[in-house]
């Protein structure tokens, strides 16, 4: 394993340890603060926080010896071929996801959301060619397909990981087709 990777892993481990400490302090304060928000719940919340952060830190240490891929956007530590690669995708489900993508307006909406969460009014301003009711129904379709998630308290719409992947894929296919159809 390269020294650079070891250093990177060490830094990340330190950062996770700091997060763990901060979150533990946060829950400790909830439990102990005499003039604040204190209720002794048998350390339940403290334990949850501890378990989560412990799991993250231990996971990283344990994975160091496994396959490591360093890309431009980050690091992937992989134990082997993932289970999902071996599972056949149901064509009906795939068609449903593709169907949600198969609309110019919905692709425009995804194109706006890749820059960050947006309120419906912001989307309306950016996509003024789409009427309010149509925009709302397109968002419903995207949400149903799992490409977009809506915050229920703030109301913002967020693009999900599958949504971002689907948008990228649609753009890539369009570019490839365009290239293929160019006259020679």
């Amino acid at each position: 394993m390269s020294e650079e990777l070891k250093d990177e892993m060490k830094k990340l481990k330190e950062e996770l340890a700091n997060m763990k400490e901060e979150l533990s302090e946060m829950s400790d304060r909830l439990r102990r603060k005499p003039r604040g928000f204190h209720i002794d719940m048998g350390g339940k919340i403290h334990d949850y926080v501890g378990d989560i952060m412990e799991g993250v830190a231990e996971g990283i240490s344990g994975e160091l010896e496994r396959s490591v891929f360093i890309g431009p956007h980050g690091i992937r530590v992989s134990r082997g071929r993932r289970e999902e690669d071996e599972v056949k995708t149901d064509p009906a489900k795939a068609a449903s996801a593709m169907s949600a993508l198969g609309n110019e307006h919905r692709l425009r909406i995804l194109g706006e959301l890749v820059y960050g969460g947006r309120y419906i009014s912001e989307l309306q301003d950016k996509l003024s060619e789409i009427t309010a009711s149509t925009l709302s129904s397109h968002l419903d379709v995207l949400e149903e397909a799992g490409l977009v998630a809506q915050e229920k308290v703030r109301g913002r719409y967020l693009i999900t990981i599958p949504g971002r992947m689907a948008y990228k894929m649609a753009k890539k296919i369009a570019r490839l087709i365009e290239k293929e159809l160019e006259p020679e």
Partner: protein
Amino acid sequence: MKYTNYELGNESLKIVKDATLLKNERCVVDALEGSLALPVLIDEKVQGYVFHGTGKLLVDSIIETTKGAVGKPTVKNLKHPFIMLGGAEEIKDNLANADTSDLQNLGYERADAFIEHAEELCERLLNGKHCHVDFNGKDSRLFAFLNEEGKLDILVSKDDKLVYKSEKKVYLSKGSKNVLKRPKEIIVSRKGKTVVIANNDILIEK
């Protein structure tokens, strides 16, 4: 019934006007008109209530990463009893004494039945431990919701900190730091960096 330093009120109340028990950037808890309420006294002061009736819980348990949003918002109808500690003063105008018919509407044939139910719930949450509550912050609350499986879901909110724990997920948020634990997956996000552990893989995004 006195435990260590807290006790429950003797008279059942009801919500006469829909009450928002907690509202901040990430969560909302509402209790609706007709729900029953029983005061929880700590050090002889009303510090919270046990509610039973109808209500709604919303938690934006979603983490934004550079690759896209992870998680789903939590939306629950509160049909089962739940405890709220903190914010008692803010809803006292929404409450009035409950009568027998109010209790019967929620399936309590005896006046004491709701109190006994509330006692049981408090005992489960507080587990007979000594408890000190001093909620100064406007949004400082602790909720324990009885879920469909008969277990307690916990929501703690104070300033910009939020902890929500249910059977299937744990969500922690403090400013720009977020943690979401779901079955087989943990996502940690902090200042634009994300660590995802899933399917035996770890993905660290810069």
